[in-house]
């Protein structure tokens, strides 16, 4: 690689050998130890897990711990609940965001600029979580999935509009023109030309929204509360609040493992896409 050659040729040789050692050490201490603690504690019996430590279990009972958490923690229900709010939120954020971004990117004028500035204000401004509760109550949406979906969509629309508008502005307009010459209406142009071209940003936006919404508990707490619509992280909070009191670290960590696996799995499968999605969207 040219950049490395340009770095410092003098230091290059020893660094070649030192770098992997440094990386391994840092990874072992900062990532290895915490993850090992989770893994090893999740298979210990309660007596061993009361004081969480890094030693191997004297008596491993993975099956019992995981089964108990699985039953008590309503993993399946939580997973379905999470999916039922996060997936529609992502779709809404992407579709509505793309439509608005198309208008903002192509049309000119003061009104467009003002509405664009307003639409991306959510990048900076914090959501007013307390009054959201009040408003949802008045709309009859408190504690419902549509309410939660609306709140998530409102929170992340700014991000998607911002990224997509920048992206569409950089696209040549000729493609759209050509389609219009062939007699395509706006809906057709949007569906056939704009959306497919947006694919890289759509990947970025999906990942960003997933990363935040999938693990959110703060807003879910205010909007959904506990109950039978609770998402995975809300269930974890409830399980952990009860179990911490009982010192059941083994059950908490069994839950953490089961809850994190879907995200890790998605990452392992789509790693390349996710990495390029995050980086291409961020630095322009």
């Amino acid at each position, binding site marked *: 690689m040219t950049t490395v050659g340009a770095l410092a040729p003098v230091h290059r040789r020893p660094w070649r050998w030192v770098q992997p050692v440094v990386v391994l050490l840092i990874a072992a201490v900062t990532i290895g130890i915490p993850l090992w603690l989770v893994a090893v504690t999740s298979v210990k019996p309660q007596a061993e897990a009361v004081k969480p430590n890094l030693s191997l279990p004297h008596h491993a009972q993975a099956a019992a711990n995981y089964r108990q958490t699985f039953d008590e923690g309503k993993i399946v229900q939580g997973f379905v609940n999470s999916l039922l709010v996060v997936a529609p939120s992502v779709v809404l954020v992407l579709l509505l965001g793309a439509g608005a971004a198309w208008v903002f990117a192509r049309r000119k004028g003061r009104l467009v600029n003002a509405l664009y500035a307003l639409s991306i204000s959510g990048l900076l401004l914090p*959501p007013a979580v307390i009054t959201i509760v009040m408003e949802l109550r008045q709309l009859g949406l408190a504690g419902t999935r549509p309410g939660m979906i609306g709140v998530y969509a409102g929170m992340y629309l700014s991000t998607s509009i911002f990224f997509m508008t920048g992206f569409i502005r950089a696209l040549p307009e000729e493609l759209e023109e050509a389609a219009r010459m062939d007699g395509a209406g706006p809906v057709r142009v949007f569906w056939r030309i704009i959306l497919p071209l947006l694919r890289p940003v759509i990947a970025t936006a999906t990942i960003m929204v997933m990363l935040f919404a999938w693990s959110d508990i703060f807003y879910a707490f205010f909007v959904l509360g506990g109950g039978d619509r609770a998402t995975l992280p809300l269930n974890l909070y409830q399980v952990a609040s009860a179990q911490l009191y009982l010192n059941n670290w083994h059950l908490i960590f069994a839950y953490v493992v089961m809850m994190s696996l879907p995200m890790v799995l998605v990452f392992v499968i789509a790693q390349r896409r996710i990495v390029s999605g995050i980086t291409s969207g961020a630095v322009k």
Partner: protein
Amino acid sequence: MADTATLGVGDATRAKEADRAARPGRPGRSRRGANQPWWFAVPALAVFGVFFLLPNLLNFVYPFTDWSAFHPQIGFVGFSNFSTILHDGSMVRDIRITLEYAVLVAVFQNGFGLGLALLLERDTRFNRFFRAVFFLPVLISALAVGYLFRALLAQDGALNSVLSSLAGHPVDTPWLGSTTWTLVVVTLIHGWKWMGLAMLIYLAGLKSMPGDVLEAARIDGAGGWRTFWSIRFPLLAPAVTFNVTTALIGSMNTFDIVQATTAGGPGSETEVFNIYMFRIFGQGLYAQASAMSLVLFLIVVVLAVPVIVGLRRRENNQ
């Protein structure tokens, strides 16, 4: 209630009227208008208006009421909620703690991220694998991260037991129980959780460096250190802007990690805004929680906006 539903629609009608008004006089514009009709933007504006803007507008109203769980009617009470949070010290304390939290997180998250990016810059198999490893914490929910570190850092937890066996005598440092240092520990955890994301963005910034500039620096005899500080780091400005901004905004809205590790304690020394709102809302004092929410809003507007504008300007001057 009625005005709630109409805001988004109102936006839309106003937008349409403006469009129609622009049409007759200027034929060129009318064609453009038909090409990207306004109604493509209307659903997004409606959702954003109803679920984001309107609550923020209401947030300028409810703090001045006595809205709570204790009586059914809501009446105006002026500034009494603000004087309550001012006089019990919670407002000043939470502003101070949240700002300290945000600055520390911005430093740690970017320091770790940039360090890792420089360490793993070469595109080898080994490095690609470890980039993924360092990205793992980003994928774990912040709440889970919080519990994990609570177990690691508890007084009878894993870290102290490791330190005890290393030192040869019992160590029982209260990592999460110090009124001075716990905030630093919690922000380190926050930085740890998000360092993988910062790393990826710095890596992208490093990769987009123009090779000829670096080559020129090398020919001029600049060493690795010099090249980094005078050329590579300034060229990373867009990545720095993005990472510092997301770190600041993210940590102003932090909740999960603090709730899981300390729940605002010890005392109230890690009580950021959202922890306070959560606690006070739980006590049924809705208007008071809303007052704190308005304070957060104003702090973000007053502080974050200039920071971001400044970073952008620096980036453009480069």
